[in-house]
C-alpha cells in the first residue's frame, strides 16, 4: 500500500532528521521512498534512538521496537510520516 503521504509532514520530518542527526544533506534531497537505514542514508540503531526521542518530543508519538510494524515504519521517510500522522498527539 503506497499512501501518497502528507508532503508538509514529510518535509518537516526530513528537516527533523537532518537536524537531529546532524547530517550534511539538504532535507529536500531525501527521497520519500528511499530506505533510511543501512543503504540509503545509512542510519543505525543509535540514530533510531535519537530520532525516536525527537519524534516523541515534537509529535508526542512514542515509538516501540516491539511494535510489529516497526521495520516498515522506519523503512522510509514516507512510511515514517504516515505513522507519525496516524499516532501523533501534538
Amino acid at each position, binding site marked *: 500500500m503506497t499512501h501518497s503521504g502528507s508532503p508538509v509532514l514529510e518535509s518537516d520530518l526530513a528537516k527533523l532528521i537532518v537536524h537531529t542527526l546532524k547530517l550534511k544533506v539538504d532535507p529536500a534531497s531525501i527521497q520519500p521512498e528511499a530506505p533510511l537505514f543501512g543503504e540509503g542514508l545509512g542510519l543505525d540503531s543509535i540514530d533510531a*534512538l535519537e530520532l525516536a526521542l525527537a519524534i516523541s518530543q515534537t509529535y508526542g508519538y512514542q*515509538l*516501540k521496537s516491539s511494535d510489529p510494524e516497526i521495520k516498515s515504519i522506519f523503512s522510509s521517510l514516507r512510511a515514517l510520516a504516515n505513522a507519525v500522522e496516524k499516532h501523533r498527539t501534538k
Partner: protein
Amino acid sequence: MHETPLIGPYRPDDVMAWGQGHTRTARQFLADVTALAELLPDRPTVLNLADSRYAFLVGFAAAILRGQLTLLPQRRAPEALRRLAGDYPGSYVLTDHDEGIEGIDVVPIQSNGGHAPWPKHLPLVPLNQVVAIAFTSGSTGHPVPNRKTWGALTAVAQATGARLGIKGGDRIGVVATVPHQHMFGLEASVMLPLMHGVALYAGRPLFPADIGSVLADVAGRWMLVTTPLHLRACVAERLHVPPRGLILSATAPLGKSLAQEAERMFQSAVHEIFGFAEAGSVAERRTIDGDRWTPLEGVRVIQDQRSCTVQAWYLPQLVPVPDRVTVEPGGAFFLYGREADQVNVAGHRVSLGDLNQTLLRIDGVQDGIFFLPDEEAGLVTRLMAFVVAPGKTSEEIQCALRAHLDPVFLPRPLVCVPSLPRNATGKLPREAVLELSRQWAGGDGHGV
C-alpha cells in the same frame, strides 16, 4: 584442578530466561545445553551470533562443555567477521536466525522447552579453562585477542553481584540494552544472572518505551544493565517504571547530573562499572556519591611511576589500564580520560590507528584520517574522516567502509579533500586536523 558448576543456585523450576516468545526454566536450560553440546562439530572456536540473550547463553554454555572457545568479535560487519574467522581456521557460526557468513559452517541454536530431567550432578567447568576470546581494537589495525577463563568470568560476576547486594536466589529479573557479545554485556547481563541464579530477559529493548514496558513486566525486582546513552533517552522521555530497581551503567562515563535525574525518575540507585575488555569489570561506584572508584573484591589497581595496571588472581598477568589514573593509598582511584589513540563512540571503544588502517585499505584511498570532534550537544558525538581519494566520491568510500566497520564507527561526515596537512615528519597533529574541520564546517563541504 578446581572446578565450579556451570550455573548458580537455581532450583529446577526457577525461571532462567523470559521474553522473545519463550520462558525457560533452569531445568529446560540444562536440557537445551546438553542437547546442543552433542550436536556441535569438533572444532576449536565458534562465533556465536545469536540475537536472543538466552540462545546466546545456550550456545556459549554448550561450547564450554565441549571445550570450545567462543570468539567475541569487536565488530559485526561481514568483512570483519570473515577476517576473524580466517584468523581462527576451523571456526563455525552458532546462530538463532538466518544470518551466516559466506563460506563458514552454521549450526542453528535450538531451544525445545517442554519437560526435562534435572541432572544428578551439575556440569562442572575448570576455573582455568579458556572459554572466550574478547577482541579489542589495536593501533596496528589488527584485532588484539584477550583470553578469558571461566575463573575470570565467574569471579567478576560474583564480585559485581556482591557489590550490588545481590544474593544467590534473589527474585530479580535482569534486563539489558547492551549486546551480550561485548565484555560488559557478557559479564553483567549473562554471567551475573547465571551465577546468582536469577532470571535474564532474552531480548534487548532499544527505545525508552520498550525499556519501560519490559521493566514493568519483571516478576520481582528489576535490574537494568545499560549505558549513559539509553539512560539519557529514558530521562528525556520521563519513563514511569516500578520503583526500587537497580541500574548498572557502563561503556562510557556517566555524568553526575544525568545520574541524579535517573535516580529520581527510576526511584532506583544508579551504579556504574569501570572496566575494559582486557581486564573485564574492574571497579564500581554509585555515580551520585562522587568520582571515586572502588575496585571489585579481589581486584587491585596498582600505580607506579610509569604506568597503571590491574591485578587479580584470575588474570594471568598485570593488565595496563587504557585511561589515565591516580590511585589513593586505600586502593580507590580516579580516572582522567583515555590515552590519545583510544576513543569512545556511543560506548564503543576503538583505536583511531585501527580505523585509519581500515580506511587506508580501501581501494582508491591514498591518505585519510579519522577524527573525533570535541563533544557537543546531542546524544552522541560522531567520528569524522578526511580522505584523499582522487576520482572517488565520499559515498563510494562510505559504502566500502560499511563492509568493514559497524555503523557506529562510520564517519559522519566523510569529507574528501585534495590533501591532508601532514607536517614534515609525516604526522598529522590534532591541531591541524581541528583546523581542517573548522574550515570544513565554515564552508559547504561535500560530505555525507
